[in-house]
C-alpha cells in the first residue's frame, strides 16, 4: 500500500526562485532563509519519495476569474510552467502521475469533495519554486507530482476547516492505494503577508510561530479560524496557510518534527519550513 512518509511546509515566494537563478543564496539577505533547506534536501535524498502531493495556489497563470475552482487537482502525466509576466524563469516540466491521481480524485468526489479535475494545467511559481528549492539542481524529473490548487485569491475562499478536511480525505485515498509508494506531502505558501493596500507589508511573527506550533500539536486550532480572522492575524495573503492545513490533514499517524526554520522577511513575506516525519 502507498504510505505517507512525511509532510513538508515550505514557502513558494517567487523571489526564492529568482535568487536561485542569480546565485544569491549566500548573500546576507537570503542566507538565513536558504540555510534552512540542506537538512530537508538531505532527508529527501535519503528517503526519496515516489510521489509528491503538492498543495499550492495558482496566482493567475492557469486560472483566471472567468472560471475559478475552489479546489482543483491535476491528473496529468506532465505539467508545464510558463511566463508569469514578471520575470521568473521557467523550469523543466514537472512530471505527473495518473493512476494515484485518479484514485484520489475518485475517492474525493465519492466523499463529497467537489473537485475540478485537470488533465492539462500549467503550474505557476506556487508549484515550481518548492520543486526548485528542494531539488536545486532541478533534478526532479523522477519525482511524480500531484498538484492541488486551492483558491486563495478571490472571496469566497474555502474555510480552513474545509481544507483540513480535504487533507484528511487525501490521506485516506493515498493510504488505500494498492501500490507500494512513498508519498511526501508539500504544503506550500504562507506565512503571514499582505501585498495589497495601505496595510501592505503586514507580517506577524507571533501568529506565524503560533501556526507552526499548532500545525504539529493541534491543527484544529488553526482550522477553527475563519478566513476573516486569518486576514486580521496573518495578512490578506496569510490565507495561504490553508495549503498547510490540507497537507496536515492527510497525516493522522505519529508525527515527528525533524527540522524547522522560521525566517522573515523574504520579499514581503514570512517563511516557515518544517519537515514532519509521518509513520503509523
Amino acid at each position, binding site marked *: 500500500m502507498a504510505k505517507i512518509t512525511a509532510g513538508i511546509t515550505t514557502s513558494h515566494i517567487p523571489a526564492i526562485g529568482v535568487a536561485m537563478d542569480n546565485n544569491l543564496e549566500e548573500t546576507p539577505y537570503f542566507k538565513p532563509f536558504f540555510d534552512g533547506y540542506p537538512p530537508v534536501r538531505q532527508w529527501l535524498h535519503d528517503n526519496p519519495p515516489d510521489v509528491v502531493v503538492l498543495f499550492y495556489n495558482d496566482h493567475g497563470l492557469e486560472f483566471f476569474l472567468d472560471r475559478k475552482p475552489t479546489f482543483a487537482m491535476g491528473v496529468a502525466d506532465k505539467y508545464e510552467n510558463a511566463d508569469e509576466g514578471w520575470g521568473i524563469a521557467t523550469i523543466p516540466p514537472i512530471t505527473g502521475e495518473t493512476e494515484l491521481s485518479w484514485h484520489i480524485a475518485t475517492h474525493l468526489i465519492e466523499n463529497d469533495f467537489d473537485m475540478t479535475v485537470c488533465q492539462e494545467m500549467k503550474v505557476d511559481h506556487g508549484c515550481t519554486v518548492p520543486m526548485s528549492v528542494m531539488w536545486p539542481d532541478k533534478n526532479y524529473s523522477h519525482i511524480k507530482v500531484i498538484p492541488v490548487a486551492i483558491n486563495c485569491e478571490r472571496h469566497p475562499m474555502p474555510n480552513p476547516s474545509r481544507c483540513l478536511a480535504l487533507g484528511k480525505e487525501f490521506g485516506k485515498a493515498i493510504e488505500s492505494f494498492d501500490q507500494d509508494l512513498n508519498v511526501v506531502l508539500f504544503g506550500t505558501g504562507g506565512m503571514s503577508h499582505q501585498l495589497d493596500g495601505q496595510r501592505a507589508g503586514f507580517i506577524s511573527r507571533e501568529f506565524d510561530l503560533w501556526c507552526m506550533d499548532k500545525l504539529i500539536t493541534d491543527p484544529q486550532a488553526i482550522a477553527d479560524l475563519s478566513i476573516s480572522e486569518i486576514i486580521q492575524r496573518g495578512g490578506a495573503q496569510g490565507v495561504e496557510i490553508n495549503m498547510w492545513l490540507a497537507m496536515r490533514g492527510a497525516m493522522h499517524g505519529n508525527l515527528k518534527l525533524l527540522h524547522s526554520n522560521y525566517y522573515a522577511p523574504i520579499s*514581503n513575506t514570512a517563511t516557515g519550513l518544517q519537515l514532519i516525519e509521518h509513520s503509523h
Partner: protein
Amino acid sequence: MCPLTPVEGTYHFDGKMSNKGYALNKMCYSLNAAECREEFSKDEKAYCEKFGLNEAQTAAILNRDIIGLLEAGGSIYYLAKFAGQLKLNMQDIGAIQTGMTVEEFKAMLVQRGQGNG
C-alpha cells in the same frame, strides 16, 4: 453566511470587487504573454480601451496608482503582472501603497520579521 470583517488598509477582493474589476483584471492577466506586454507598452491607453476599462481604471493604470487600481476592483494577483511590466517588484509596490520610500518599507519588513512594530 458570515461576511468578511473590514480590515483597515485592506481591500477584500470579493464578488462585488471582482465584478467591478473584471475588465481591468482581464487586461492585467493578459500581460502573462510577452506579445501582450509589448502591445501594452506601445500604447497603454489603446490597450486599456481594447479590454473595456472604464475611465477610473484607465487613469489609475496610466498614473501607476496602485491604491486606485485596488479601489477600481483590481486583484493583487493580476496587478502583480502590471507591476512586472513596470519593472517594479513587490517591495516597490508596497512602498507606493504605504507612501513610504522603498528603503523605509524594507526596514519595516525587517522590523516586523523580528516581531517588532
